[in-house]
């Protein structure tokens, strides 16, 4: 289904950006990808700040609506362009379970950032070691969730799975998803990577960031 005006401003590596691409592809939505040069500070330019004062990616523009926050973009795209989709159920309790996991995913991303920053930017082994347990704790939680239902927010695949997928695929590419520790997550990941026809939109970014982190960890001697 073509939508004339949806612009997504983002970068490939960023998991929240890839979560948005996955959802857009899942519902067959055409969008224009606008690469943001964060190294050059494009996200702090006056034009960008006008769209999103929080200067974050992803940012979305659809006509007059400018939106920051990947999860809000995801639920907007669902409400607007695929309101009857099972990916974001309408029943209040079922929707709430998905929303709950979308919030969990924000915490998961935070803990991934807690690894990426010391490894790629600060080159700080101590900080990496201090922050790693938080990532592991979130993975333990996800393992628990997947012990209670087939997918992240229940029996069916929802946008919560797509968001978590963007994050967990990165963790896997970084060599940090030990199969023995997290067998359910590993199986869930393999299933979605194989079964989702639109998964390819996530691959380049996950590998790019994951491999950079893997290399960085090795260089730190961690």
């Amino acid at each position, binding site marked *: 289904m073509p939508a004339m005006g949806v612009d997504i401003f983002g970068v490939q590596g960023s998991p929240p950006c890839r979560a948005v691409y996955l959802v857009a592809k899942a519902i067959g939505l055409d969008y224009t990808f606008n690469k943001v040069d964060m190294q050059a500070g494009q996200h702090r330019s006056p034009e960008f700040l006008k769209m999103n004062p929080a200067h974050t990616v992803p940012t979305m523009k659809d006509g007059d609506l400018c939106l*920051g926050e990947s999860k809000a973009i995801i639920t907007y795209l669902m409400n607007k362009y695929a309101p009857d989709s099972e990916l974001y159920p309408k029943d209040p309790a079922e*929707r*709430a379970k998905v929303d709950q996991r979308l919030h969990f995913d924000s915490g998961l991303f935070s803990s991934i950032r807690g690894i990426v920053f010391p490894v790629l930017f600060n080159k700080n082994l101590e900080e990496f070691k201090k922050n790693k347990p938080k990532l592991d704790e979130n993975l333990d939680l996800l393992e*628990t969730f997947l012990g209670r239902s087939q997918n992240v927010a229940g029996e069916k695949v929802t946008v919560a799975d797509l968001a978590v997928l963007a994050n967990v695929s990165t963790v896997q590419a970084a060599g940090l998803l030990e199969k023995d520790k997290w067998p359910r997550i590993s199986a869930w990941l393999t299933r979605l990577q194989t079964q989702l026809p639109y998964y390819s939109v996530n691959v380049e970014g996950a590998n790019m960031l994951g491999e950079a982190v893997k290399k960085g960890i090795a260089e730190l001697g961690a």
Partner: protein
Amino acid sequence: MGLTVFAFEASPPCRGVFITLKALGLEYELKQIDTKAGDTRTPEYLEKNPQHTVPLLEDGDLYLAESRAISTYLVNKYAPDSDLYPKDPEARALVDSRLFFDVGLNTALLHILKPLKYDGDIARSDAAIPALLDLINIFEAMLAKSEYAAGDHVTLADLAIVANVSTAEAMGLDLSGVPKVRAWLDKIKQLPCYEANVQGVTQLGVMYKEGSTALRAKAQ
């Protein structure tokens, strides 16, 4: 059967839920949780909420963590036509965007409060203050575009964000550079539902001021 909320009053996300419940006129039973005493780590609590967090909502068979998911659920389920969470996709998206922005506010607040509460580390606590003030500056820029957090009327976004911003004020943090935020805060404080925030924010403000003052004196 009714609603039950597992929470403690000082916690900003818990207060966000209390304010929303009051705004919607919903009755609920409060179950007091003491995280330091390990209440969120008992097998029974973990069964209900493996994330071992507060707040937690119990509604029949449904157990829901994550304060903002709780608030949107309450409107969707019990007041689906409420202006607090408009149905129009564009208007709703703006509320959702601000709700997720609020997650960042809370995280920044925790980076100030946790080192104090658990480690007595005033240096790490003080070092985290600029990051929160940065976010409050961003909120100031957001309020340049709309009278309330997510548009021209009160929404769930205001009710969530006020729990965090009122906490920054109660802690005595410097809000002199954000006049729109201060004006917005005064407006939200006038709402009847704000009453549900008062006890907890006062408690947390006092705790922070006393705790931080004592630790800074010790460090001298």
